[in-house]
């Protein structure tokens, strides 16, 4: 046998040599057939991308092993420092460190974070505070831009010297880039400080919605700088453009969201690819909006918000878990990569440092933010039912962090129209560093110092759900009595419209008729049953390994005869073997529910699962088909 193998190997070797020789066109070359050769160019791109992502993930892993550090310094700061180190390392090695490519940023790194935020956006607080959020996002950003642009221009005029060439339009453009609060940075810092829901949604909502303003102003000023002169008509068109960008983005997102919901209605036979539809439709919404220079971020948010209730009613529980974990994973990796690249780009990018410009920028950022927030809150509080206190205003103002979006927008500027692009980049990087490091690090102790209300850990409780719905009905009725078409009235109308028409189209099967209360209750029961199953199985597995003494004790009290025990053992052994034979083959296209079980305690798990399924099916009974209406009504009447 071995001799035959050796002969075959030798034969193969010779053939290889022959073939190798035949392929050589050059007769003088008598090279040996390369058993091991290196071809790095073939895999360079994917290899480097994977290496970066691996580095980012390992960094994330490392931080959480050092609880001392991660308790004081927010993760984003540490990641930027890592980026600086890596960039320095690359520079020391002689190569040029890569810069954060704007196309890569806007098309690959930003969408996962925004989709994750939009899909899991808490709708109720968002709509309740929508007016406030919009005011901060639109009016606040406009104020910041013009205030900063004007004061910077004045400062440049006064300074003269190198800054004399900076004209008003450039200052306004710089203002529009640097004023926008960045959703990535806000998420990264606010995730860790756990403030109450209201403040979180205010700052976060503002950072999402100000994208429309930023996009419009950026393109506006860029066009003006390119064209050379500005007329009143242009300004008017700019205002129109804002509405088109914002509403257009939302519309595009909404359309894709409806499509996704409709598609998910028919996926009951191909459960495996359900998450893919969610991701693809959302990404297409983003890209389609970017094609027309509409606000991609708003499209993505609108898509996620619109499709979520219907998709969740249609897809399986596993797909829901998959979507949740994939989104969290991608957004986490993206965020890490963004901050690392920011650090690397700082080392790489061409810098033009100017003390005056940079220091004035930082001071102005803080000043305009504080003034804007205080001024707007004074106006807003007249219309709000729950007023914003001074502490709230401080957190909103202090939480206005700048991030990578500002950097990428500045990077996209053309050097021909803007000769001072390098100075802008340096100033923006300094502002980003300042906000992320100084504000990011100090916001946690400040929150504790000012005793700002923290987020309440809410377990989902059936009581809260029932009573909240009860109150909503009550308030809608009271508004009807007052003759006041307020918040509750419109929400009630929207719910009825939703229930009557939209749910019928977009949710398949009997789930379309299910009231919200029942689906909430079912979800809760399912969650609890699964938790019970997991805790029971893990308890039994560990008990089987460690509990020798308790078993003996129970044996004493059981009093089974020896033959009976032998009989039981034989039955158990036989069943265990049978289940091993009964394993079904694993197919890539379908997921059988118990294809993976290969554990020695499988029978025990099986028994528990059967018991759990019996319990679940009791609670998840398909709602009884309505009997003849008069009989049904009579029953209701008699209750």
């Amino acid at each position, binding site marked *: 046998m071995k001799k035959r193998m050796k002969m075959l190997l030798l034969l193969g070797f010779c053939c290889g040599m022959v073939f190798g020789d035949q392929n050589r066109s050059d007769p003088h070359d008598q090279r040996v057939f390369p058993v091991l050769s290196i071809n790095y160019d073939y895999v360079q791109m994917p290899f480097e991308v994977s290496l970066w992502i691996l580095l980012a993930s390992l960094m994330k892993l490392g931080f959480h092993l050092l609880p001392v550090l991660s308790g004081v310094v927010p993760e984003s700061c540490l990641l930027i420092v890592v980026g600086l180190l890596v960039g320095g390392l690359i520079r020391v090695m002689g190569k040029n460190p890569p810069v954060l490519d704007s196309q890569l940023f806007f098309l690959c790194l930003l969408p996962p974070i925004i989709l994750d935020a939009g899909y899991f956006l808490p709708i109720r607080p968002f709509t309740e505070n929508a007016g406030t959020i919009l005011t901060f996002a639109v009016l606040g950003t406009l104020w910041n831009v013009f205030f900063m642009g004007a004061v910077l221009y004045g400062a440049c005029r006064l300074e003269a010297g190198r800054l004399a060439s900076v004209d008003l339009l450039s200052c306004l453009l710089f203002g529009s880039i640097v004023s926008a609060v960045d959703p990535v940075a806000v998420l990264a810092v606010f995730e860790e400080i756990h403030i109450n829901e209201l403040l979180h949604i205010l700052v976060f909502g503002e950072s999402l919605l100000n994208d429309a303003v930023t996009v419009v102003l950026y393109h506006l000023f860029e066009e003006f700088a390119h064209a050379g002169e500005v007329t009143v008509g242009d300004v008017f068109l700019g205002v129109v453009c804002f509405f088109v960008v914002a509403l257009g983005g939302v519309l595009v997102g909404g359309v894709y969201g409806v499509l996704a919901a409709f598609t998910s209605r028919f996926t009951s036979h191909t459960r495996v690819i359900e998450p893919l539809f969610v991701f693809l439709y959302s990404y297409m919404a983003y890209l389609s909006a970017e094609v027309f220079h509409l606000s991609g971020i708003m499209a993505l948010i609108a898509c996620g918000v619109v499709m979520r209730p219907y998709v969740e009613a249609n897809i399986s529980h596993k797909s829901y878990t998959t979507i949740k974990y994939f989104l969290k994973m991608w957004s986490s990796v993206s965020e890490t990569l963004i901050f690392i690249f920011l650090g690397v780009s700082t080392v790489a990018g061409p810098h033009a440092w100017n003390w005056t410009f940079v220091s004035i920028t930082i001071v102005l950022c803080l000043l305009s933010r504080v003034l804007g927030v205080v001024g707007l809150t004074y106006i807003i509080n007249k219309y709000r039912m729950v007023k914003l206190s001074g502490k709230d205003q401080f957190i909103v103002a202090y939480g206005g962090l700048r991030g990578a979006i500002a950097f990428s927008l500045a990077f996209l500027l053309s050097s021909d129209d803007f000769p001072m692009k390098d100075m802008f980049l340096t100033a923006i990087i300094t502002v980003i560093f300042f906000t992320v490091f100084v504000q990011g690090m100090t916001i946690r102790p400040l929150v504790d110092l000012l005793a700002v209300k923290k987020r309440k850990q809410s377990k989902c409780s059936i009581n*809260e759900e029932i*009573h909240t719905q009860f*109150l909503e009905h009550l308030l809608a*009725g009271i508004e009807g009595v007052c003759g006041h078409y307020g918040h509750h009235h419109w929400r009630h109308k929207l719910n009825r419209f939703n229930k009557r028409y939209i749910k019928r189209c977009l949710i398949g099967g009997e789930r379309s008729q299910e009231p919200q209360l029942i689906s909430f209750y079912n979800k809760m029961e399912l969650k609890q049953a699964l938790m019970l199953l997991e805790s029971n199985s893990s308890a039994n597995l560990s008990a089987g390994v460690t509990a020798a003494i308790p078993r003996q004790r129970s044996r004493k009290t059981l009093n089974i005869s020896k033959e009976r025990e032998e009989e039981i053992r034989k039955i158990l052994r036989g069943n265990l073997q049978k289940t091993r034979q009964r394993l079904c083959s694993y197919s890539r296209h379908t997921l059988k529910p118990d294809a993976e079980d290969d554990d020695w305690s499988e029978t025990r798990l099986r028994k528990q699962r059967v018991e759990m399924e019996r319990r679940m099916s009791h609670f998840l009974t398909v*709602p009884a088909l309505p009997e003849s209406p008069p009989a049904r009504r009579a029953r*209701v009447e008699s209750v």
Partner: protein
Amino acid sequence: MGLQGWRNVLALKTSKNNNRAAWQRAFPVPLSHSQITRLYSRFHSLDKGENGALSREDFQRIPELAINPLGDRIINAFFPEGEDQANFRGFMRTLAHFRPVEDNEKNKDLTSGEPLNSRTNKLLFAFRLYDLDRDDKISRDELLQVLRMMVGVNISDEQLGSIADRTIQEADTNGDMCISFSEFIKVLEKVDVEQKMSIRFLH
């Protein structure tokens, strides 16, 4: 009392705080002048019979209440025990529960008793809508009735029963299989009742 009559009552109120006590003695409902005027015109427009009081039919004519699952109970809340007519004072008193909680009211002295729109009183109003027999407890049957009204006819009784059992089990701390008012308050302590039970109309 016609609108002029009410205006005379309102003339008691001056903008100075030291007359606030006199105002409240005459008129123990915490609403401002403009709010009362608006409510009165609404009351008047609902009162088709022109007799200065609202009957149940007047309320049932409101379209929003007709389609509301809790419509009947809301209407009942406006009528005091055993009466069939709701006068303007009662109308206002019920609606005063839904006035937003003002910050400066929190600092007001509590010698005049807790205002109608405090958190506790708002919750008491909601509790009384559940608790029809006024025994200060929400029993399983009362809960089932409300659930049935909110959920519709498609759900079986067993399912609704298990939901009701689960709800009582979660809230009940003293083991009497009913939800008392203090348990009700405790369960809703994380819910922002001040904002949820306020109407901008009365702002």
